[in-house]
């Protein structure tokens, strides 16, 4: 037994000896089972981002007055053998309360299929297909896996499209603020002196201006004829303009500390150019840290987007984002009628949770002093 362990340990050691920093990080990261699982969740979400239409059962904007406020339709996989279906529903308006009331019709079932043909869509702007992950066998039949909203739009499909918007906002905003933060923070930390002072004051200024009015002002100042998509992109940029400061500070701190380290000094003595020192020597030492910090910043951006859209200041319908979907749930009264409209909130929580877990896992894994 001792021998086996020794052999195994030997194999381990050999690998460690040749492992690059990145491989080490990956090994350490792999040990966090929750983080690994969360990374899986995020990958799934980003697959949805790539092609929400494939996952959507129908056009997310398709309205039908007579299919408003349909509750969730539970998916059944077996009906005497593999034959997925959802219960058929019938609804009528209550003459007294004027509420649409839905009941399942036990005599009928709506059969559904996987990889079925439905409404055509373009994949990444490359080709057109009409294959959907899931859909009713009869294409004319609409199914509402997660219920429908007040205009009779399918929440499942809307969440898929909202995922695309919100996850992209998070990613793009954080990428931009990472670039800004690294460049400005790096400049500040590397050169020091007056440049540092100016950038530091700028950061303080940006940090002390409350975000909501900045947001209001900027989003109101956007060109008036922009479409919701353009506004959406602009909002992403704005989010990153506000969000880079924290990272900028961190990068500066790291630069300040690193500047004094021996190897940078050595590189300078060896006559390396400044840019080269930054890119070749300083950057790699905290790249992993930046990645970890960024993955923790994405959920913050997502929550910002959600909150702002919720206030009606961010992304606006007919564009779909998680915040826009949650705006429906803003109305307690709607919630009383249709609690399933809170589901997008759960999606937000899951995504943010996953980002946080992955971020923490990455941070732990990338910290060479962790044990």
């Amino acid at each position, binding site marked *: 037994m001792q021998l086996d362990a020794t052999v195994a340990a030997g194999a381990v050691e050999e690998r460690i000896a040749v492992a690059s920093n990145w491989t080490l990080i990956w090994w350490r990261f792999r040990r966090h089972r929750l983080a690994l699982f969360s990374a899986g969740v995020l990958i799934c979400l980003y697959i949805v981002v790539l092609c929400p239409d494939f996952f959507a059962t129908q056009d997310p904007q398709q309205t039908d*007055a007579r299919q408003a406020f349909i509750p969730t339709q539970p998916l059944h996989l077996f009906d005497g053998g593999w034959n997925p279906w959802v219960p058929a529903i019938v609804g009528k308006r209550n003459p007294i*309360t*004027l509420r649409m009331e839905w009941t399942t019709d036990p005599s009928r079932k709506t059969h559904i299929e996987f990889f079925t043909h439905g409404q055509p869509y373009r994949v990444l702007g490359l080709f057109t297909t009409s294959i959907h992950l899931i859909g009713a066998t009869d294409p004319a039949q609409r199914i509402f896996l997660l219920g429908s909203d007040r*205009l009779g739009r399918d929440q499942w499909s809307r969440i898929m499209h909202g995922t695309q918007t919100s996850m992209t906002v998070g990613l793009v905003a954080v990428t931009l603020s990472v670039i800004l933060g690294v460049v400005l923070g790096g400049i500040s930390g590397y050169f020091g002196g007056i440049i540092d002072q100016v950038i530091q004051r700028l950061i303080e200024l940006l940090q002390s201006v409350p975000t909501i009015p900045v947001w209001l002002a900027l989003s109101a100042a956007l060109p008036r004829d922009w479409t*919701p998509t353009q506004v959406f992109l602009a909002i992403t940029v704005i989010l990153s303009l506000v969000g880079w400061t924290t990272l900028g500070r961190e990068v500066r701190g790291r630069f300040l500390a690193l500047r004094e380290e021996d190897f940078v000094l050595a590189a300078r003595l060896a006559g390396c150019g400044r840019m080269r020192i930054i890119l070749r020597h300083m950057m790699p030492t905290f790249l992993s840290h930046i990645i970890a910090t960024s993955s923790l910043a994405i959920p913050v951006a997502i929550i910002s987007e959600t909150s702002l859209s919720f206030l009606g200041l961010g992304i*606006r*319908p007919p564009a779909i984002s998680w915040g826009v979907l949650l705006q429906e749930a803003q109305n307690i*009264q*709607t919630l009383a009628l249709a609690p399933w409209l809170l589901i997008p909130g759960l999606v937000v929580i899951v995504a943010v949770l996953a980002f946080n877990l992955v971020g923490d896992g990455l941070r732990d894994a990338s910290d060479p002093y962790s044990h």
Partner: protein
Amino acid sequence: MSRLAQVAALSAFLFAVFAFQAGAQSKFHEAPALAEQVKAGKLPPVEQRLPEQPLVVPVVEKIGEYGGIWRRAFLGPADANNYVRVVYDGLFRFTPDGADIEPKIALGAKASADYKIWTIQLRKGARWSDGEAFTVDDILFWYSNVLLNKDLMPTLPSWTRNSDGSAMKVEKLDDYTVQFTYDRPATLFLSEIANQDGPDQTLAMFLPAHYLKRFHPAFAPKDELDRMAQAASFKSWTELFNAKAAPAQDPDRPTMAAWIPITRVSDQVFTLKRNPFYIGVDKEGNQLPYIDELRFTYFADQQALNLAAIAGDFDMQERHIQMTNYPVLKEQEKNGKYRVIIWPTFGGSDAVIAFNSTYTADPAIGKLLATKEFRIALSYAINRDEIKESVFLGLGEARQPVAAPWHPYFPGKEWATKYTEFDRNKANQILDALGLIKRDPQGIRLMENGKPATIEISVVPAFGAWPDVAQLVAKDWGAVGIRTIVQIRERALHFSMRTSNQLMTEIWNEDTTAFPFTGGSKFDPRNGPLQQLTVGPLYYRWLTSGGKEGVEPPEPQKRITQLVDAARSTGRDGQIKAAQELYRIWADDVYEIGTIGLTPMVQGVVVINSKMHNVPTTLGNDWPLRSPGNARTEQFFFAK
């Protein structure tokens, strides 16, 4: 409106006679709290507080009981009209059905045969809420020192103008009789007077001279005024005066209403208590109001307000209640100990799509928007039934924005429902006929300049489920090959774009349909883009600059201005004829596409405490009627 005027005068006379008899025959009664103050010597007895001929207010169900606090909600200082509507502190007021005008603070009014001279009779012995006598001097103070003061009133309101633009003449005949003289027939005089109760933070046409003189440079030393203004952070005496003259901003300012403010509209709770000198009694001689106190609680958020309403936190509230909450309200009736009733609006349409016929930013689009057939096609393309079902809970009817069937101005069913049937083929045919035949790969029709026809609907999320309507309409228009972008905008942004002629189309409601000739009617292109939607900001400029700027309006629009002018100086029958013609033009030329009308969308869902009585089950519901003020709120009461 001659019939209205005559009715008003006659009813005033009848009321007066009746009231006189009531006063002579029976002793008056008062609220227990007031009786105690009388006993303590703090108040004169009720007989001395009431005018010789009190206003006798008919009750809806039964004679009420004194006491209670009427809990309501408001959304802050900009919601001061909430107060205005509840107290309806006017010389005259609209009757509950909105068809007539009845005297309130005034005793009656009489017009000369040519409607150029109006005489208003005040109630002898009527008093302000601080006990001072209310006389013609209070109207003259307004006339000489407010209306004719250039600092306070840089431009004259249209109803006070003679045909040459100068102000009408106001003369005191005696302490209780005042005479208004115009150089034109002023047939709509009473309708205007019934709205001179200080709405929109303007000044009422009768002001407590004894209180306000100390804030006016005609009576007070200038340096003293400056000192007072500065102490209150005001820049000028006019700001000070305006603040002091607004009851909602100054609790010390006496009013004539049934309840008087004791806190300010800028407070968390805007509280009003009964006016011990209120001029009204019920037919048994009980001085009104029945309810002791009115309490408006501030809500920062309309959603929170609605939630509180569902929980039964208000005793009678229709303002800011969203129609979409009707089902929840109805389901919670028992738990919340309230009942929910519906007052459908007077307005012809609760979501109209208004077109800017003078849009210039994109000439190709502008040309389409100004084309009547194009608008007709888009009207046919809308599936109104779907809008009705999903936005209006299945209430209301598909119609153009014209007066309601029960109203004398109703132009006829043919016009009310013109172009409202859902017919995509017809829409496509018309669009094809307009030359919009070629389409891009997405199926969007190409305009003559080769660009896809793209229309933007600008919509403000504040006042109704209009964004939903916009999205439904956008989908329908897309289906006939017109790409439609919905832009949900902040109110201020939307308005400044409207004023600067940047909007293509917008969604609003037609809430003053029954009043095309008074106030800031939306049908009159001369009222400008502040009131009037996007019908054509450049037409407005042309009309107001005497043809120097802007774009000359087409014949039908010019005809509308003639009709409005005619109605202002003609009698009731002439007004009805003018209005009907106006609505026919409106529906024929589809300057606005009506969708669904006659729903309770605008403050028409009423939540009433189960214990509250005398609230009418049907009511003319519109802003000029000051609903619920026209329901005679002073006779509402709580059953013990």
